């Protein structure tokens, strides 16, 4: 495949699955600028890995794995930077744009934001895949854990949500 054809194929697949990028950035970043930075980082890593993509495998699984691995590394690096630059107890992924918070009129979205902020990076990945209605098998494949483990962890997330929101 020529370089141009490879790029055209990549752009087409990326465009078809762009919801994955927006979902991952929405799960890991609270402000728009960080979301854009992370989207660029994910796209760059997808492009660098694309020549090794095996077309027999599911593109969305491949894309989710890269996007989530990049996002988790991005958030950890940002948290490390924030440790030395942000006020105490405020990590980079918790820093929301105040204009966005003001615009957030939907109580449920606010509750979702709070719940996401209370989770560690791996549980956020699990929650994202669950909210995007992936099967347990698909979640297990992306995360590299067993289906039983997925079921157990989703059960725990449900319980944790009920505890957090007081229902």
């Amino acid at each position: 495949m020529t370089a141009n054809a490879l790029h055209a194929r990549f752009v087409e697949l990326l465009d078809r699955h762009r919801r994955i990028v927006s979902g991952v950035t929405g799960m890991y970043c609270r402000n728009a600028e960080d979301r854009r930075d992370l989207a660029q980082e994910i796209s760059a890593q997808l492009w660098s890995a694309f020549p090794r993509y095996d077309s027999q495998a599911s593109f969305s699984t491949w894309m989710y794995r890269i996007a989530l691995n990049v996002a988790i590394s991005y958030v950890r690096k940002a948290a490390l930077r924030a440790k030395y630059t942000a006020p105490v107890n405020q990590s980079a992924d918790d820093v929301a744009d105040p204009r966005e918070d003001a615009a957030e009129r939907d109580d449920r979205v606010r509750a979702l934001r709070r719940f996401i902020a209370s989770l560690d990076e791996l549980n956020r990945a699990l929650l994202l895949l669950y909210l995007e209605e992936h099967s347990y098998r698909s979640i297990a494949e992306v995360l590299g854990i067993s289906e039983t483990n997925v079921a157990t962890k989703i059960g725990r997330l449900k319980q944790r949500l009920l505890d957090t929101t007081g229902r």
Partner: protein
Amino acid sequence: MSMDLDELKSAWQALEQRVSADVKLNRELLTELKLRKARNAIGWLTCLPALELVLALLIASATGRFLFTHFFEAKFAIAGVVLHAAVVLYIAMTIRQIALLWGADMSGPVTAIQRALTAYGAARMRATKWVLILSPLLWGPLLIVVAKGWLGLDVYRLFGVVWVAVNVGIGIAMVPLLIWVSRRFRKALKALDDVKSFARE
């Protein structure tokens, strides 16, 4: 407000619709990607330890040569052995760091890649910790070896045996303090435990 995980799905859809506008992948970015030389994030991470390995191998060959030359002069041989052993230990730790990332790429399962990345981070922290703890102990042997090996000077004769002994004593006295300082690195090991327990449970 109370809600369950299924109600969360509709909230997620609302949120996702809004954030998707922020991450529209524009034509300029995609063109730039085409021109960019592919740079794998994990491959890039191994550059620093690889560079450190080359440097450490060069130092090990110099300390090895020094040891060979002064093997039968106890006062130099002891300093040479200590320094050479420290460099060999550092080489082993650097090789381990490279091995942790060897063959890993971002398209692997999330827990496997995060385990490799956090294990790598923890190994680097451990290496830094040991460098920090051992550096005051190595200062004396380093001075002896460098002065003799490069400049042909005998530190024992130049400064006296007492001076050398005091330096070694100060180095030993500083170790407990540096061990206390290095406790900060425990957080990196905790991150590794978190990933392991997520995959195991």
